[in-house]
């Protein structure tokens, strides 16, 4: 999915958490939905972080997710990508097991 933010030199963030029932990595999407696809996440500017976390807090109360927090993302040609390696690994899966985690949804060539 092409990224709307491409080329803009600003600090962008998304909210991430783990889903309560299975622990899966999820990101907050528009309309307070939670998605397994980082490209579908709601990307916002740093200044909005507190408001977005407050919104995520409702999903905690509703027992959808646990421990939400903000991560830095950078726009790229193929959508947003986390800035820190730890979040890159969370978004994809273990780098030593390309058959596991969200990266497993891609074809072996695209990995």
């Amino acid at each position, binding site marked *: 999915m092409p990224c709307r933010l491409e080329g803009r030199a600003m600090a962008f963030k998304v909210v991430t958490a783990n889903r*309560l029932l299975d622990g899966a990595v999820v990101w907050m999407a528009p309309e307070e939905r939670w998605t397994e696809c980082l490209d579908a996440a709601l990307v916002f500017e740093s200044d909005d972080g507190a408001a977005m976390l407050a919104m995520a807090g409702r999903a905690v109360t509703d027992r959808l997710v646990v421990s939400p927090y903000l991560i830095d993302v950078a726009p790229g040609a193929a959508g947003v990508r986390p800035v820190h390696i730890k979040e890159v*690994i969370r978004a994809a899966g*273990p780098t*030593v097991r390309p058959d596991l985690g969200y990266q497993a949804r891609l074809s072996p060539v695209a990995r």
Partner: protein
Amino acid sequence: MYRYDEFDRTIVNERVAQFRDQVRRRVAGELTEDEFKPLRLMNGLYLQLHAYMLRVAIPYGVLSSRQMRRLARIARVYDKGYGHFTTRQNIQYNWPRLEEVPDILEELAEVEMHAIQTSGNCIRNVTADQFAGVAADEIDDPRIYAEIIRQWSTLHPEFSFLPRKFKIAITGAPNDRAAVKVHDIGLRMVRNDAGEAGFEVIVGGGQGRTPMVGHVVRAFLPVPRLLTYLEAVLRVYNQLGRRDNLYKARIKVLVHQTGVEAFTRLVEDEFQAMAEETPQVLPGGELARIRACFRPPAYRTLEDHPATLTEALAADPAFARWHSTAVSAHKQPGYAIVTIALKPIGGVPGDATAARMDAVADLADRFGFGEIRVSHEQNLVLPDVAQEELFALWQGLVSAALDTPNAGLITDIVACPGLDYCNLANARSIPVAREIGKRFAALDRQHDIGELKLRISGCINACGHHHVGHIGILGVDKKGVEHYQITLGGDDTETAAIGDIVGPAFPAETVTDAVETIVGVYLDRREAGERFLDTCRRIGLKPFKEVLYAAH
């Protein structure tokens, strides 16, 4: 093996039912995450990078084939087909669903296993020599005492909220294969002048942020006083250990700050006071009952070095090579201890698929009285194999791709899960292990290098035991980029030492080259019969530094 009695069974079953209700309440919204988190951790359930992680206790690393098959079944049914054996002789599952964890715990309870005290500030799973009960050099079987400590420490109300987690390791042999000097308490069986067996008690060792080799606080502790003395140590720690600073809360910091002499006096005073109050000793009947659980299996009368083995060794070089790394001396003539290295070249140290777990269980039944051990070096062990059956066992291992002939060699790498799985990690461990494994894959070269313990941790908590690796590698985060700091000269045996940092950290791209350079210095400088560690101790860091950082 020890079998659960009614008390064990009741405790474990009640805990399963309790946790099932806690999960139900969490999902129903009756418990918040803040309320639930300490409860799930008390049952070994963490939340890691990708999912929940369940850590299952394997008491002192001893498993039956039946239990191993159940671990395989859990991997297959509830997880993604594999498990990870850890440096604390436990197993971790990386992908369980919260709702199914009570079912997993119920399946574990059916085979007398659980996940109690695999997290939290309590006494964790007691670890022991993986050759316990069968080693040729052993004074007494440490499983007996590990089991007694397990029973004493399980749900012990006085020690459920210690300042920090607490790890006890025990060995029955002078050659320490259980790393007892880098545990909160290490117990080593010794004999006194009268020839009686007892324990040397070592306190205040540990790794992590502040690595320390433990100190002997008791040169000889008579067996019947074991629990009283442990209780005295724990009481002193519980009272004086720091609860204000997470990084200073382990007993090693208390021992260091108090001073060994003063600390020892505090323990001895408490020990004396307890003795006067109630002269507790281990009841002889109970000791005998536990000992009986670990009676040797029905060995046949066999000779060492049977002709069939000698012929197979001469005829098949691949078997001979495997034999030279995997087989250790057994106390019973005609038998051998076999280490199954879980370190395939390019694989993940300590990982085992459900199929391989089943294969090991089958081989244990066919060749080893159905018993399996997990080592703190993330390998498996069949403790009782007849020497005349080693060749057939090896063929079975080959079929299951479990025949990597590298136990004790440079590619027998210990590595924590690192940033590929762990929330605490700063850098990845497994990819580094894989690269080093591939670089040194050539068997002739590995065997030429000889014994070399390479250990990798992805953060300062040191689950990969890097501080005590002959070569230790620690992953660090330098401005968001993974780097690796190298230490040399660490040792986790009876001659324990913490490795020294050789210099500035290396980026991921050059860490394997750096290891190769280090090994090159050893090969150039070694004298006849010297292991890597010996040369390292003799020549010090300087020659390694000179070559490693020559271009800088």
